[in-house]
């Protein structure tokens, strides 16, 4: 059976697959943010063991390929007796990857808050949770917004790697369409355009935020 693809058919299929790229990006970013926040608190805690463990966690995720992380999650979960779909493995792998990077970015932001702020709030007899909540985190948050938005671009681009473990997002669908239509130049050009349409607004937004906060300081 041969099926003829018009250019519109290609675009329609890619748009459909783009939804999965978008969904995976959102899930990885939100869950990665939540896990990353937990990692952050452990990373900046006074407990030495927590510090060392989370430091190692971040270094391992930043020092190994995302593809390997996905393979290990994919095959590791199935060894643990969990029936893994590519979708689950992709979401879990990207969440861990995102959490490590966000925790490291945010740690930098917390450390960028001047030491005097800690000392002043300690002088006011604030407890550690109070210091965090009322003094440090609100200031760190302001610094963190621009690099966090900037990192979201890496998450969207990272979803492309999940095509290799069989998740049918934009890149995987593009590969299949390229094979079916014998028009790889057109198809991969359109796939690239799709990612660009997702990422470029985020890049621009990150840049404008950066400018805004630099002026404000």
């Amino acid at each position, binding site marked *: 059976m041969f099926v003829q693809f018009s250019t519109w058919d290609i675009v329609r299929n890619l748009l459909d697959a783009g939804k999965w790229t978008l969904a995976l990006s959102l899930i990885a970013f939100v869950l990665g943010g939540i896990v990353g926040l937990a990692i952050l608190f452990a990373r900046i805690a006074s407990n030495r063991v927590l510090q060392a463990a989370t430091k190692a966690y971040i270094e391992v995720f930043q020092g190994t390929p995302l*593809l*390997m992380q996905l393979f290990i999650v994919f095959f590791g979960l199935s060894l643990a007796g969990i029936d893994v779909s590519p979708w689950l493995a992709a979401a879990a792998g990207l969440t861990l990857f995102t959490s490590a990077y966000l925790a490291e970015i945010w740690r930098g932001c917390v450390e960028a808050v001047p030491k005097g702020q800690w000392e002043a709030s300690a002088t006011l007899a604030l407890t550690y949770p109070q210091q965090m909540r009322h003094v440090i985190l609100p200031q760190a948050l302001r610094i963190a917004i621009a690099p966090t938005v900037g990192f979201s671009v890496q998450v969207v*681009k990272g979803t492309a790697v999940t095509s290799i473990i069989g998740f049918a997002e934009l890149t995987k669908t593009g590969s299949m369409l390229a094979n079916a239509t014998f028009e790889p130049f057109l198809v991969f050009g359109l*796939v690239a355009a799709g*990612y*660009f349409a997702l990422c470029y607004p985020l890049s621009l937004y990150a840049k404008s935020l950066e400018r805004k906060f630099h002026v404000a300081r």
Partner: protein
Amino acid sequence: MAYRFDFAPVFEHTDLLLAGAGFTLALTAVGAVLGIGLGVTGAVCRAWKLRPFDRMFGLYVEVIRNTPFLVQLFFIFFGLPALGVRMSEWQAAVLAMVVNLGAYSTEIIRAGIQATPRGQIEAAESLAMTRPQIFRHVVLRPALAKVWPALTSQVIIVMLGSAVCSQIATEELTFAANFIQSRNFRAFETYFVTTGMYFVMALAIRQLLVQLGQHYVVGRAR
């Protein structure tokens, strides 16, 4: 029944893993040298607003930074032959790495060049330094010294990203791992060992570049 880990079937193929790691390092070395070279060119065009090249590099940087490396690789390897540009797997892998690193290092090095105050160039001119001398000693070296840590990180990101080159059958480390796990059916163990090898390579490259930077870039820029 609990799974029993068995790493012996992985280490039977140590020679393949080492050959793959060597190939990954070779790809990275070529990609880093050419990519940073491209980055210096782009950074100069951007920083000094050399028309029309500054606009061209600006477009190039945005396109590359906002699309995934895997798609760039597929476009080069599968898409370009439609225009009559054919290349082997490793050539496509190197080209993709150079193009990718070139874009990031253009932005990184541009920041370094722009951080050099204009007065330093004027001072160098008043010392009767020639233009190539000024470029080398007053513009490029201090710029590279300032951004060396960022460049180092970017080279490591490109090395780790090269794992996806296995998808076009470039015979690097991940390709070797895929082959081995298809033989011994020990996927988890194989990828676990491979991940460890990538981690060690990342640490080694960082050490190497920090040393090289101390010796040839940062040390002499002062």
